[in-house]
């Protein structure tokens, strides 16, 4: 008798019931890790004034370029400022600018994309060409040009022009995704139904189309937070982002940090690690979200 290979015993026990949270964590371990890191980062950055051991701006030239010790866990920089405190405060800058820039860019992009898909015809053609022009310019170069030409515009300690410069290159990328999604939704009969019910165009776009692109929107939003943090860091590194002495991770890598890094590697290692960790966390979380929102990837409806 041949060994059975296809026909098998049937299952007799039901699968263990699991809560929805547990199911997602089991399905997306990296995404869950990303989420934990993001939450941790937010808490730490928010609580920076209370948990930072030193004033991030206080200089102590007698104790400059000190290696990590019990007094300074991550050492000090060439001005004798405590690195740990600066990284904690730098997290505030990174999260604030990253989240706001990504939010502004993605939200504008969302509505640009939907409107162009909904309107169609020449409106669509013109908007699309304009978006392509924006896409053609490398993201950092575009931000560079904007920041250097617009100068600074500080509101509540945030450079609005910097936020806008980082948000602008995000708009066409989001618009593209939103447009392709909107084109599919446009052909579903509930949009036809909304038209035949006599709803206004604005209502159809805001109430009926935008919420159905929420999934891709959230995915893009998280993915671009990490990009925005990276751009902020690189602009700061180039001296065009956050101004000294405000702590910023990019800024901490800039200036003479590079020169001293041979002798004092902790000056570049810790801020670099902070950037890498946060970017990794947001990317992983964004990927996991995409899997959750992508209907094809979902095994059980």
């Amino acid at each position, binding site marked *: 008798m041949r060994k059975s290979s296809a026909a*098998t015993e*049937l299952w007799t026990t039901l699968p263990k019931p699991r809560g929805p949270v547990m*199911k997602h964590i089991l*399905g997306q371990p990296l995404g869950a890790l990303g989420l934990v890191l993001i939450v941790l980062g937010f808490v730490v950055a928010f609580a920076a004034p209370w948990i930072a051991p030193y004033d991030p701006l206080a200089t102590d030239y007698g104790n400059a370029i000190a290696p990590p010790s019990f007094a300074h866990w991550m050492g000090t920089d060439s001005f004798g400022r405590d690195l740990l405190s600066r990284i904690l405060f730098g997290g505030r800058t990174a999260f604030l600018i990253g989240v706001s820039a990504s939010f502004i860019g993605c939200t504008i992009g969302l509505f640009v994309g939907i409107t162009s898909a909904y309107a169609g015809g020449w409106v669509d053609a013109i908007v699309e060409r304009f978006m392509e022009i924006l896409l053609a310019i490398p993201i950092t170069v575009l931000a560079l040009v904007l920041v250097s030409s617009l100068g600074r515009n500080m509101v509540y300690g945030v450079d609005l022009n910097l936020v806008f410069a980082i948000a602008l290159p995000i708009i066409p990328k989001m618009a593209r995704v939103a447009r392709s999604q909107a084109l599919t939704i446009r052909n579903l009969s*509930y949009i036809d139904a909304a038209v035949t*019910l*006599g709803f206004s165009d604005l209502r159809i776009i805001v109430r009926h189309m935008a919420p159905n692109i929420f999934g891709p929107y959230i995915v893009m939003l998280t993915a671009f937070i990490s990009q925005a943090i990276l751009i902020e860091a690189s602009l700061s590194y180039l001296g065009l982002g956050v101004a000294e002495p405000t702590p910023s991770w990019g800024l901490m890598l800039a200036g003479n940090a590079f020169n001293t890094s041979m002798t004092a590697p902790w000056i570049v290692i810790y801020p670099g690690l902070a950037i890498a960790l946060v970017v990794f966390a947001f990317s992983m979380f964004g990927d996991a979200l995409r899997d959750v929102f992508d209907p094809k990837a979902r095994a*059980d409806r």
Partner: protein
Amino acid sequence: MQARPDAAAEPLLSVRNLNVQFRSNDRLLHIVRDVSYDVRAGELVALVGESGCGKSVSSLAVMRLLSDPTTTRFSGEVRLAGRDYLRLPESEMRRLRGRDIAMVFQEPMTSLNPLMTVGRQIMEPMLEHLDIDRAAARERAIDLLKRVGVTDPKRRMDQYPHEFSGGMRQRVVIAIALSCNPKVIIADEPTTALDVTIQAQILDLLRALVKETGVGLVLITHNLALVARYADRVNVMYGGRIIESGTVEDVLRQPRHRYTAGLLMAVPRLDLPRAARLHTIPGQPPSPARFPSGCAFSPRCGAATAACGSVPADTVTRDRRYACFHPVVDVLPQEGEHAAAGAEHTFGTTVLSVRGLTRHFHLKRRAVVRAVEDVSFDIPQGGTLGLVGESGCGKTTVVRTLLRLQSATSGRADFAGQDILSAGKRDLVALRRQIQVVYQDPSTSLNPRHRIASILAEPLLVHGLCKSQGEARARVEELLGLVGLPAEMAERYPHQMSGGQRQRVGIARALGMNPRLIVCDEPVSALDVSIQAQIMNLLADLQAKLGLSYLFVAHDLAVVRHISDVVAVMYLGRVVETATRAELFSTPRHPYTRALLAAVPSFAADAGQGPEAKITGELPSPLNPPSGCVFRTRCPMAVEACAKVVPPPVAFSDTHRVACIRV
């Protein structure tokens, strides 16, 4: 009468106690339960049932195409010519698949590889499974194409699938299935994606091939009329089990199981006098996640008793099997309660009058698609106009232009003294309130992110029909009651409802605006048979209660006959015949209407089998329609004069107009 295969003959394919389970993260679905059936040589065996009954899954299991052991398991025996191949290892199974047992899928558009010529795709299984060289394989492929009715097979061998129409592709798929002389072919809804005239061609072909070559064919379908016309034996599935099986004559004439009987009475039939109301089965087919324990049909069954809580054993008589505690004993009534149906309404006034509606699409290089050409019809006040035609005939375009979702090229559509097609923005908003729509696919016609309450309340608030949230809430409850849904449904999201319930919500949304005219765009074609009857009765009740007029677009003639007062038949962008229901179905005049009626599979054993009115060929491209009468290329009555002029409508009565010079 065909020679019935000897009942004692050894079956080619024998399925015994097949069970299939699916497991996802948190659910265990036992989709197929103890299914057993036999297929003998030269026999067409139908597996029939509504969505979710397990008919497709059971055949995938028979093909052993459910292979992931972490998510699916199955048990039982499937013997092909006496050998149980469920126990073979996958490598040997691969040799069997395609050679001894072949499959034809539903969707001919996606079951062929678009990057390979048709000829190669037919030759591939032969080169894989048979000891045959390329030249011989090519010879055989050409021969197969000829046998499945592809003209000019030598040339078409080297064409790609996109150069074939849907019906032709399905013929190619059949040729591939036949290529290795299989013993058994499994056809999963082979004609569901095709038009009724093409469906008749394909099934006639399949039946002839089965009788000629002696293969066994398993036909999976939801359409009982197809079973009646083409199959030898039938297995009715419900809730994962075969609940009744036997020869087609026995089962369809004298169903024993309550479900089979209910289903047969729920289908609108062209061969019986029209009943005023369709018989319905209450409730809805069970979801595979929650098959009721005991007899799966008991929650919907009028005759259910406490005994139905346990699984009924098969009652086996000579050639029959059924699993029911309370079998139907009488012969199925062959006539509906047609007492009330006798009265034909006469309609005085017209609610919508369409004249010369034309819609052309301009493509690149000056090509023009004449989607709709000079279409005229009247919708009677308080009555229903049925607009029938096959896919591509322009009925959807007519609807979309009338709803102003698209602009018309020319024509008028007078509604309440106003031309819809030229109405300005403000008039249009007022018109939209009076003309509402019910869409075909209930899964896409409701916004998935809104609760039912807000879907129904939003238009009321936007148009100021309800002044406050509270008023709207009361109206929503009233609307749900009107379409037969409990008020709790307001809190649900669309995906938490069944297809039939969603369609009711779609109707409620249309009713909210107090419209005069409702455009029903194929409102029942995406629904299961038992649900279809419920929705059609609901539409009829609402019409009687609220005095609504309907424009009812459909491709199913039996459905159209049931619901319409007046019918317009479209072909390739033109209306070829308009008549009252009685006129059209008793004395169809236009050759196309007659062919369409003949192509509809009928329950009557002898009806429609003759070749007299069958049309051959396929729909010409609307890019380049035939000159003169558009139907002349497929018309059995065509003469030279048909190519010269577009036939003007000839009036046979006040209501009966036929655009044909030969009638």
